[in-house]
């Protein structure tokens, strides 16, 4: 068991345990904070998989952007005086049976499939990703920038107070 195995075990367990807490915690604010550890764990797994640029992007976008948005959403959609923002669940045991069987099936499928092995060398990826984005995937790249602008404008439009519409 070398250092890489210990790192994979540690970050895999961190990811899974914090994701379990996200799903089952009775307080929604705790599960939002637990999502932080899931995102960091996935970023560390990206690093182990030699995806350095992607790990940095994961930390910047998920932890710096999406998580802050989610925590703002939790705090803005609850009554501030109500400190215990409780969460209700429904039909937990009915859902557990089919989902658990699907998960068991997927894990058995993963274990008994003969996957092709074609290793990627451990080297910096940023330059190659940049070249591929500009050359091979340029249409997807441009379309995604249009999508981001549209989502931004839509979010601002949806999030505005309602009586602003009459002012114009």
């Amino acid at each position, binding site marked *: *068991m070398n250092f890489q195995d210990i790192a994979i075990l540690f970050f895999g367990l961190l990811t899974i345990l914090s994701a379990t807490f*996200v799903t089952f915690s009775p307080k929604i604010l705790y599960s939002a904070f637990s999502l932080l550890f899931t995102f960091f764990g996935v970023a560390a797994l990206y690093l182990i998989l030699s995806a350095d640029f992607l790990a940095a992007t994961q930390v910047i976008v998920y932890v710096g952007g999406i998580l802050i948005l989610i925590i703002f*959403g939790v705090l803005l959609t609850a009554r501030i005086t109500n400190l215990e923002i409780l969460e209700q669940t429904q039909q*937990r045991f009915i*859902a557990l049976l089919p989902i658990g069987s699907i998960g068991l099936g997927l894990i058995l499928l993963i274990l008994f499939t003969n*996957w092709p*092995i074609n290793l990627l060398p451990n080297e910096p990826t940023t330059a190659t990703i940049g070249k591929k984005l500009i050359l091979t995937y340029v249409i997807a790249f441009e379309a*995604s920038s249009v999508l981001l602008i549209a989502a931004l404008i839509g979010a601002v439009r949806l999030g505005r107070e309602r009586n602003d519409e009459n002012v114009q």
Partner: protein
Amino acid sequence: MFNNLQVFLIISTILFILGILAILTRKNAISILMGIELILNSAGLNFVAFSKFSSGNLNGQIFALFIILLAAAEAAVALAIFLGLYRQRKTVFVDQASELKQ
């Protein structure tokens, strides 16, 4: 020992299952959004694991990059919708907002 494709695929499967469970059982809309984020993370982890062990090139990492981008756009729009819902109905529990008209 752990540095093979199956370990990462199993981690991402467990993340996917937990995300589906959060979507199915939670009532608060923001918890459902967190479940969606878990599922998108598991898909990205799958792409990167296959890119490392199975394909030998970086196309999987670029797909994971686009997944992160789509997750950001989706989270912004979804939270704006939830804020609008809360302003109108005073709730974000999806079972209390199951009708389109009031």
